[in-house]
């Protein structure tokens, strides 16, 4: 019994001792853990501070290309592929897509840089934890350093996100300022050209645009920039994909770059698109005297412009040749060769500088074969957009005059236009009407050629070339009554002229073709003229 009691006492003492020992151990552990908590709090704070500092240093390292994470670059090829600025620009340039050029830094590259900073922050934090969890023995290292690393991660992300949002805010502000710059420069460029009524009229494909294309100034680069106006590719300048800096306005680009027609991609004269263009389309049958009229008129125009301290300068090889040939023909008193039939003849561009103004005159001389029917004249798109039309009428081709020539034995002494003059008129005007092009806004000059021969025939002596009404009356009296009535119905503004393009005639003579050129200039801009007074009186008012 005593032995049993002794055992029980021993067991109880052992339990009490064990309980006491556990208590002491747990109390000791709790005291140690309390200090571990302090250690964790301090290392968390230190880790946080280190993370903040890392977040300060990390963006500059990424931006300067010294970090592992490199920013994706918004390259010109990406721009063309639609990965930077969207699929295509707005307006006329949408047909060409984006030009191959570097986008402005803010916001396109800035966004990519910022994303690289975020990626680098992720990489740094991940690699820090990767290092910790790779240590051996992992549980011990994690138990000691995890709060420090958590503090570091929090500090880094707080710092990086603060940078991200602050820079986003500042970037947005800079973007707004840049947009104001784009709007101002773009408006200035557009208004300057609009004030001049500047357009590009391609002398080869006849299309009209206010936004010409330009070749990169680097001879090794074949890039054509279709829309150089201020925008996401540059505000004052843009950087071509080849690295060459080029102007970012039409006005500035026209001074330094080769201009290209955006439709046919042919080079056009320098400065095209920054000045007003006056197309002078000449319509008439084969042999009506169109080229002779233009040659005689343009040579005298050049002479008169020089007398007025201006200049008339050819700006294409075709124009140089035309002017030289015309001058040679006029000085020798010879006839110019018949214009060869081409489906789409190239225009003759000349820069007219007069009274402080600059105008690009485009003589559009198509062969008479182009005016045989609708289909042939359809290719002459310049007629559709011209404000002034010049119809060359050979009065000797009128049946009554042809008969008079025969009766007076003068047939064969002078070439007579082929076919009915009204047919060549109809080939153009009927087509324009069918295509719903407004004729009311166009001015028409009816020019009777070969008047020197006509005046030798009986019944034509009373044509007064200074009086458009007398020419109109003469036409009505000599078999062209229906034609005159038709013209009156088609056009609101019609003027009649009588000219002699052949031989040497003084420019002041009312029969000289330069009178028609003067009328065309005055019709386009009342402040532009080369003759002291109007040679013809408008007729056929308001009949349309």
């Amino acid at each position, binding site marked *: 019994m005593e032995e049993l009691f002794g055992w029980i006492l021993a067991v109880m003492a052992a339990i009490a001792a064990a309980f*006491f020992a556990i*208590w*002491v151990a*747990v*109390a000791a552990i*709790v*005291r140690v*853990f*309390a*200090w571990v*908590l*302090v250690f964790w*709090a*301090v290392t968390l704070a230190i880790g946080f501070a280190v993370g903040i500092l890392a977040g*300060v240093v990390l*963006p*500059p390292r990424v*931006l*300067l*290309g010294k970090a592992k994470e490199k920013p994706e*670059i918004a390259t010109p090829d990406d721009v063309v592929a639609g990965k930077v600025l969207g699929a295509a620009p707005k307006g006329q340039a949408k047909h060409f897509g984006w030009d191959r050029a*570097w986008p402005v*830094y*803010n916001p396109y*590259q*800035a966004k990519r*840089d910022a994303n690289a900073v975020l990626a680098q922050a992720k990489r740094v934090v991940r690699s820090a934890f990767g290092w910790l969890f790779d240590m051996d023995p992992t549980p011990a290292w994690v138990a000691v350093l995890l709060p420090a690393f958590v503090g570091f991660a929090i500090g880094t992300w707080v710092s990086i996100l603060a*940078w991200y949002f*602050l*820079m986003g805010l*500042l970037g947005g502000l800079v973007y707004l300022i840049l947009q104001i710059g784009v709007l101002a420069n773009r408006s200035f460029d557009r208004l300057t050209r609009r004030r001049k009524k500047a357009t590009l009229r391609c002398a080869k494909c006849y299309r009209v645009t206010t936004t010409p294309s330009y070749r990169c100034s680097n001879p090794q680069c074949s890039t054509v920039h279709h829309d150089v106006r201020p925008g996401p590719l540059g505000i004052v300048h843009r*950087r071509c994909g080849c*690295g060459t800096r080029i102007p970012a306005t039409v006005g500035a680009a026209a001074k330094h770059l080769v201009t290209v027609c955006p439709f046919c991609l042919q080079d056009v004269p320098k400065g095209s698109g920054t000045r007003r263009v006056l197309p002078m389309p000449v319509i008439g049958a084969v042999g009506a005297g169109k080229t002779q009229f233009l040659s005689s008129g343009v040579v005298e125009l050049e002479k008169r412009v020089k007398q007025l301290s201006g200049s008339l300068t050819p700006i294409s090889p075709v124009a140089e040749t035309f002017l030289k040939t015309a001058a040679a023909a006029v000085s020798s008193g010879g006839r110019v060769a018949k214009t060869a039939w081409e489906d789409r003849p190239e225009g003759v561009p000349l820069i007219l500088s007069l009274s402080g103004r600059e105008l690009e005159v485009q003589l559009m001389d198509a062969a008479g074969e182009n005016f045989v029917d609708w289909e042939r004249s359809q290719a002459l798109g310049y007629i559709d957009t011209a404000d002034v039309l010049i119809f060359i009428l050979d009065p000797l081709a009128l049946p009554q005059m042809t008969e008079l020539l025969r009766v007076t034995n003068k047939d064969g002494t002078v070439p007579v236009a082929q076919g009915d003059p009204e047919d060549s008129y109809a080939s153009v005007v009927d087509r324009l009407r069918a295509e719903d092009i407004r004729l009311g806004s166009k001015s028409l000059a009816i020019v009777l050629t070969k008047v020197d021969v006509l005046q030798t025939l009986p019944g034509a002596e009373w044509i007064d070339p200074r009086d458009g009404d007398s020419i109109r009356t003469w036409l009505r009296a000599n078999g062209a009554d229906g034609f005159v009535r038709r013209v009156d119905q088609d056009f609101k503004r019609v003027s009649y002229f009588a000219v002699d393009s052949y031989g040497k005639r003084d420019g002041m003579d009312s029969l000289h073709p330069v009178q028609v050129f003067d009328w065309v200039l005055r019709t386009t801009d009342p402040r532009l003229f080369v003759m002291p007074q109007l040679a013809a009186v408008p007729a056929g008012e308001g009949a349309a």
Partner: protein
Amino acid sequence: MKNNIPVVYWTFRSAWTVLHFLIVLTAAAVLFWWALKDGNGERLFETAKNDLLDLQHRVASAIPWPWGA
């Protein structure tokens, strides 16, 4: 071009970096000034230290020694 990137990109990045450091330095200066003013920093440190030691004490005394109970 510099490293096949337009120079203006590097200019913007440098400007961004300078601006970034200026902002950080300004923020640090403001924080430092605030810490010095009226002993704010010292007070904050003391408060944090006391709170932490108080926590340590509470945890440590959560389980008393057997002979102190």
